[in-house]
């Protein structure tokens, strides 16, 4: 089985958000939700149900992995596991971002956007 990142493209919008965030930081579940709200305010809200479905799938696909909790993690009885993107995960999200940029920069998209702008 090849480990070709393009195999995972295109990413669903929520997957893209999660993987982007975990590509730069190690976060636990609620941390991801918080970071997503801050980083992608205009995007649909990430809820806990969807989040853990995505985490489960990405763990299975080896796009992310579990990491040790950092020192400053609050110490109470709640379970908080931390996740970070794997090399493959980072490659996938980079490939997706490149794909999106190419899509948006295409002359067809630009002319449509300028038409919409003019309509307004």
């Amino acid at each position, binding site marked *: 089985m090849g480990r070709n990142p393009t195999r995972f493209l295109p990413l669903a919008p929520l997957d893209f958000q999660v993987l982007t965030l975990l590509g730069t930081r190690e976060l*636990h579940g609620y941390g991801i939700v918080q970071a997503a709200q801050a980083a992608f305010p205009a995007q649909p809200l990430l*809820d806990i*149900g969807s989040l853990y479905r995505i985490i489960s799938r990405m763990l299975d696909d080896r796009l992310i992995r579990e990491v040790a909790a950092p020192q400053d993690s609050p110490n109470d009885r709640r379970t908080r596991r931390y996740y970070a993107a794997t090399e493959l995960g980072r490659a996938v999200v980079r490939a997706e971002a490149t794909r999106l940029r190419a899509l948006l920069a295409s002359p067809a998209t630009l002319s449509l956007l300028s038409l919409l702008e003019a309509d307004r």
Partner: protein
Amino acid sequence: MTDVSTRIIAAIIRRFPSPFRERFGAEMLSAFLDQRDALVAGSTTSSLTLWRHTVRTVAGLLRALVAVRIDQRRRLESIDPDHLDHHERALMRHLASDARHGLRALRSNPAFTIVCITTLALGIGANTAVFNVLDRVILAPLPYHQPEQLVRLYTASRQAPTGRNVSRGPDLVEARDGINAFSSVGIVNLYRETGVDLLGRDGAPHRVRVLPVGADYFRTLRATPLLGRTFTRDEERPDARVVILSHELWTDFVGGDSSIVGRAIDMNGERYEVVGVMRPTFSDVVAGEVAAWTPQDLQAGGSNNASDHYLSAVARLRPGVSIARAQAELTAMSARMRERYPDGPRNDEYLRAVSLHDDVVGEARSPVYVLMGASGLVLLIACVNVGNLFLARSVSQTRDIIIRTALGARRSRLVGLRLTESLLVAAAGGVLGSIIAYWGVRLLLAVSPGSLARAEEVQFDWRLLVFALVVTTVTGLVFGAAPAIRATQSNPSDALREGSRGNTTGRGARHARRLLVASQVSLAVVLLVGTGILIRSFVARQHVSLGFDPANVLTFEVHTPIARYGTPEARVRFHELYQQRLRSIPGVRRVGLTSWLPTNGDYHQWGYEYVDDAGENRSLGPQVRVIDGDYFESLGIPLITGRRFAPTDRLETTDVALISRSLAKQAYGDRDPIGRRFETGGREFQVVGVVGDVANEPTGAITDMVYLSHAQFADDRNWALTYVVKTTGAPVEIENAARRELAQVDPGLVVYRPRPMEGVLARHLARERFTLVLMAVFAAIALSLAAVGVYGVLSYAVSQRTHEIGVRLALGALPAQVRRIILREGVAIGAIGTATGVAGALALSGVLQALVFGTSTRDPLVFVAVTLVLGGVVLAASYVPARRATRADPLDALRNGNSQ
């Protein structure tokens, strides 16, 4: 509050399949709690926000739960088909067994099941059908791009702020260029005479509607042509001879030839260059069926002077601009226009913007809303009825439930069992109801010919099934849940004890059932009162005095194209010739003509300038009609004093007029109006006669009326005249003869829109009849359901009290006494229901106000009649079980009473 929401979340997390749950369950709960703590820490957070957070999380978890289960199933099926999650299998087993149990229970009692399903099907079907019409006619947007931006422009005045009059050319041209709130304004001339007679491909002439429009008309509606172009502003001249064809005209008359653009076609004897063809999807909701469009003359002067009101307009608001802002600009504009035209006739008038959607839907709104409410009541009654039946059955099943509870069945399982049963019934009712709805929609359309705006757009679609599904599910839950919860709530030991004595079983349930039936009765009263008031209004309207006799009268229009009938003499000669020919048809008694039929509303409202006895100049605003031939005789309008028009009243003789009785009274009081002079339409006339008043509106409302003779007034314009032919037999029988004779006089003309006068009136009444028929159907359903309810409750009471009745009879009670006990119960239910129903109907009486004519919405006669009808029905429904009670053999009753 912590604990309720946390418990809910935890409970859902427990439903996730085990591998997922073990891996992430604790984390998910932690994440939820973390998130909530953050919310709590926020200073502005209310408990509402916390609940919203919980609800959102629940929704997300449920979605994920389904998705995870599906993922897992897919994976398991591909690996090992037998490896089903334990819980999942149990759940599937429960569902399947519930459904099987439910089906078995329903099959074992077919009468119960059939009654339930039929009742629900009627309720669901009626609602779905009415909703469909409501949706299409009222809620659906207009078939244009961004229809919410479209407004209709009318002329209103300070005295009549809700006026919907036609407007002056200069006002609309100013609005088009001077109102910032509008991105474009489509001016349109909706005047009726704008049609042409076209030679069809069948060789016969057909009259089609041609709509003169300003250049921006299509742009305002965001309609682009299929071929060619739309009009330019240079073409808004009287001598422009260009035309845009509708798709229909293009295919029917031109044969769909695309090379037609740039070529000329013949219209009314003149050559018009075809510049465009519209798309088949373009429908003109403002004007109705339009076959072609020509440019409207908008040059200043001529008919576009400061006093000629004849144009209309549709405007498009700029994005984000409200109607109120546009109205403010329009009102400001009227001041500007007053300065520019200081001697305009009515100086307090201004343009008024109305949402185009509201304008098109207009009066159809109230009846459909009333019907929606009525069908909702029927559904509610149906739910109550079925709930009642279920409740009755749940009482007899109490022991079954108790035994199951004793054997360890969980309450949730028992409620689930009942709900499955009620949902099965609701589903069957929903399927049957959808079939009823499908035919119901057709029936609604069949009984509402043309009475509902945009009714031609109504058709059955999928959203309707979704609506039916939602109604069905809600219905099933509503009538199923209460009995189910009740059945499992009772303390088993109490219930067992109660159940052991046949005569007191489920006292609580009996009260509940009486209450349900009483509420059914009250809902039925509301519907019956509504129907009764509509019937009274309908009868009142049919007996309204119109001032003329519509029986045996055929009406049709004949339009004389200006190209061939350019002179007044030619038009007068044509109409005289054709009248003579019509009179020669066997069965024709009288032939007359008019510019506008009575009961069709306002048409030409002109000034009536006269000098009163004190020498003061006075002015009135009557309706003016141009007539010819035996118009008054054809419609049986009486001559009160003076004379009618005579053949000696010609173009060249003194201008004479007849006036209506109300106008004579208004202008001259009790003095003789004959010989008086007045001015209208820029000419002076002498009153030679007074005729009876006729209804100007279908409601019987009369208006002051001036009649001018066409033979004398034909030089004013090319009048569009409607023939009014009094016949000895059925008016339709002479239709073909009228066509034949017209072809003899001029084969290029058309007998346009032939209709009996009674048909013209029926059209006005159609909407009322439509509402009435449906209300009557709903009320009948409600009444029979209420009767069934009363009967059911009392029969059940009798069977439950067999033991008691047996004892009473054995102790020497007379049958009449026993009967009275049962009847008293029925009467009590009926009385409570009727009283609350009457109160409810009084409270709701305002709803009908818009639909009612000539009667009060609180008509005491209707309330008394409804009370009597219901009283009779309740008594009849109670009598049967009461009689059955006294027929019981005391010995049997005593022996079997316990085993009930």
